């Protein structure tokens, strides 16, 4: 498949890196340095030029492109790229936007601005932050099959009840499959004898209920108390979207925004949120408002450094968990070492979403587990699939040994795959696939 990516910033190059091994990728950017850098790093065809110009797109081969991804940092440019591409040829267009206003317009027809699929960075970030709150110990949660199946990655706390147990002993959750154990960035497929050591990460696939009960088991017994008091810091678009999503889930969060006019605006939009107008980096204020009592503090300020400061201040006051939205990719792991519990990078979340959408024609949903290591796919089984009409025990013989079938959804119900489960045509299968096995999976499922 030929994929044309306009914008070689963090999002664009990240998508390019994920797709370049199995697809023909062309990257367009105005910045000659970016283009040159990409040429060395990745197996992609770089084109230097303005992606909103028809000449440039034609040079990049828009006529043969199956998918055009507009991933620059500018909303209007991205919309113009999609519009231009749709005028020149008939590719599937994907646009990345910041403003939720564009997303709302697009949702009305799913075709506005000549965009076939639109991702909103702040909304995706907000969604992934809120999923993290629902699973306090999870480091990654991705929904599959319209939310009926979830993949979640948990860090096993050394003090939790399952630390030190074998998978066989820990596997007592209804409709839950252990897909992988990640230790030191390396994913392995667990067998019954694999020991879940403290500090390692486990990847499970199952129904939301089973994932939830597993979440309680991996958590240290002290943190088992449910999340109630949430403080959102920063009332930008991201903070607003996070608070809105929290309200939808029945939380009554507190939101701190330093600008009084904006705070008033937010207070009118968020009926269940207590909005406070104050500078959140003021330690005395945080202490006076008992931010230390919060179960979760979410920092969505426009500066990464301020996010770090607020997170550390609240942690020192006694806040349970600190989640921060961090724009600079280099800071993410650093900040997690210093004291932020989870740092979410909006660009990474966006790139992941776009990659997931683009990857494989039949793959409906993809989650990147460890970049370059493994991913989780959702596939609809057709009659050419090796799974169709056979018990799983027989079918796996034809698949690479590292592949794990995590869950099956059939007509809105979730089936836990066991050796004698027969997969039918039309079923949706959520599979865990290590990087090396991707090509084989694409062919056989």
């Amino acid at each position, binding site marked *: 498949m030929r994929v044309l990516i306009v914008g070689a910033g963090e999002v664009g190059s990240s998508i390019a890196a994920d797709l370049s091994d199995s697809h023909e990728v062309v990257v367009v950017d105005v910045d000659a340095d970016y283009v040159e850098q990409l040429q060395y790093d990745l197996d992609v065809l770089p084109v230097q030029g303005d992606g909103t110009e028809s000449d440039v797109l034609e040079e990049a081969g828009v006529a043969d492109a199956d998918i055009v991804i507009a991933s620059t940092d500018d909303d209007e440019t991205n919309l113009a790229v999609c519009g231009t591409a749709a005028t020149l040829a008939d590719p599937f267009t994907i646009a990345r936007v910041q403003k939720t206003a564009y997303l709302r317009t697009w949702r009305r027809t799913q075709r506005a601005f000549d965009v076939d699929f639109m991702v909103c960075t702040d909304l995706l970030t907000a969604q992934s932050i809120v999923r993290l709150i629902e699973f306090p110990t999870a480091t990654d949660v991705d929904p599959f099959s319209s939310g009926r199946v979830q993949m979640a990655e948990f860090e096993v706390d050394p003090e939790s009840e399952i630390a030190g147990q074998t998978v066989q002993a820990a596997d007592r959750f209804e409709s839950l499959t252990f897909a992988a154990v990640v230790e030191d960035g390396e994913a392995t497929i667990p067998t019954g004898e694999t020991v879940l050591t403290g500090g390692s990460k486990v990847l499970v696939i199952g129904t939301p209920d089973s994932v939830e009960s597993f979440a309680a088991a991996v958590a240290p017994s002290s943190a088992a108390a449910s999340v109630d008091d949430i403080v959102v810091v920063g009332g930008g678009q991201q903070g607003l979207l996070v608070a809105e999503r929290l309200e939808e889930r029945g939380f009554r969060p507190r939101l701190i925004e330093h600008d*009084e006019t904006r*705070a*008033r605006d*937010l*207070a009118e939009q968020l009926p269940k949120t*207590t909005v406070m*107008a104050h500078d959140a980096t003021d330690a005395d*204020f945080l202490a006076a408002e008992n931010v230390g009592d919060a179960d979760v503090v979410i920092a969505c300020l426009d500066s990464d450094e301020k996010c770090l400061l607020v997170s550390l201040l609240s942690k020192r006051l006694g806040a349970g968990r600190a989640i921060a939205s961090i724009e600079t990719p280099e800071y993410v792991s650093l900040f997690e070492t210093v004291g932020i519990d989870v740092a979410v990078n909006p660009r990474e979340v966006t790139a992941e979403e776009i990659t997931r959408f683009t990857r494989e024609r039949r793959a409906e949903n993809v989650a990147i587990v460890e970049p370059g290591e493994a991913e989780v796919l959702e596939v609809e089984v057709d009659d050419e699939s090796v799974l169709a009409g056979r018990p799983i025990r027989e079918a796996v013989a034809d698949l690479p040994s590292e592949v794990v079938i995590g869950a099956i959804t059939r007509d809105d119900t979730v089936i836990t795959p066991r050796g004698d489960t027969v997969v039918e045509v039309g079923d949706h299968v959520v599979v865990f696939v290590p990087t090396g096995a991707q090509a084989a999976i694409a062919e056989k499922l």
Partner: protein
Amino acid sequence: MSGGLRVDWRVSCSLVGTVVKWLWVPLCLPLVLALYDGTALTPFLVPMALTAVVGFGLERLAETRDLRAREAFLMVSLTWLSIALVGAVPFVVAGVGTLAHPVYALFEAMSGVTTTGATVVTDFGAHARAIHLWRATLQWLGGLGILVLATAVLSQLSVGGAQLMETESQAQDVDKLTPRMSNTAALLWKIYVALTALLVVLLSGLHVVGLAPEMTPYDALAHAFTTISTSGFSPRGTSIAAFSPAVQWTLVPFMIVGATSFVLIYAVSRGNVGRLRRSDEFRFYVGVLAFFALAVCAIRALDAGPGVPFERTARHAVFQVVSITTTTGYASTDFNTWSASAKHLLFVCMFIGGMAGSTTCSIKALRWLVVIKSFRRDLFVATTPSAIRPVRLSGEPIDEETVRDIYAYTLISLLFFGVATIFVVLDAARVGVVLTEFEAMSAAASTFFNIGPAFGVAGPMANYAGFPTTTTFVMTLLMWVGRIEILPVLVLLTPSFWRS
């Protein structure tokens, strides 16, 4: 802009002229009854001629009809005043009883058109049935007028938070009020007429099946007119006490409906019943009614002791609380003879009123609800100084300026009530009439909040003729100011309104 004035008074007067011109239509109703009864026709023919001449004359004052805020305020004030003046003519021309006196005639007409229901009639039997029907017709017109005023005019002029009323569309076009006015009027007119017709049919039905021997078709019409408009005139000296319990129970829901926002009623008539539950104001209004009804009922049950049928106690308690709170002012019994505690609760009810956007008067549930909510908000902010929490009504945030307007309106209402009480006391002392403070306060509140009966001298079975003529004249003004939400009259008194 004419004559150096900032307000284009010709436009206002011209619009008033249009209203006055059409007053011959409602005058036909008592005229037909007078023809049927064979009583004097002149009381109605004279004002008919008068409205034609004055109405057409005023209408010709201005060519254009561009109504801006100032002209709208002037027009509103003058409309109510001029209908009262025209409405008083039949009483003066008929020349029977106390109503022959011009000041009393104006009081009665103003009490009618402002849907108050306070009367100076001493001998109800002396007046022709046509005159009584004219009193009821005036109230029915006043109720319709206030609906149009509240939904179409005051909400656009942002008077005392009236803009909060649950309107179907929130078009803010203060420059041109006229097109919206006619649309809204047409809509509400239908609901208002339908409700009145329904009540006439129900009351006549009760008469036919023998449950209401006193409720003749004439009484049914007159009482339907004054129930839906929450006004309270009755051709009977004993008000609703003259009718059977079945009639009294029937009127209760209609008084409640009359004081319910007509925009809500419109939504419900379109099948959107959920709007009732979602409306904070409606829940508050019904809650207040239920609380006071239960409280008065309990007090009356204790007062009465054993032996008195509970149905009678409950009926009078519920009827009286609903009648006073909705500002109707009917009496199903002489509540002046009730114990002090029951009377004081009824007195408190005078200050509440029904929902905004209905025919009710007084301060209204909407304003009290906003006052309570914003006070609760202030208490919260006192403990969390950096918190920002807008006051919400049915989920929608209210801007702070509106909250302030509502506080101001509520305070001014209470201030007016206080000053009016002082005037009543002083004026009575001047002519040597002995009034208790409760009588003075209740009479001031009852006229200013457009309720009708008070306690003591102006009790439900008595009348306002016992007050000095000066007091009745001032009360006429109070009814006028109170009915059109105070501000349209008050702004006329500010020099900046007139000067350029």
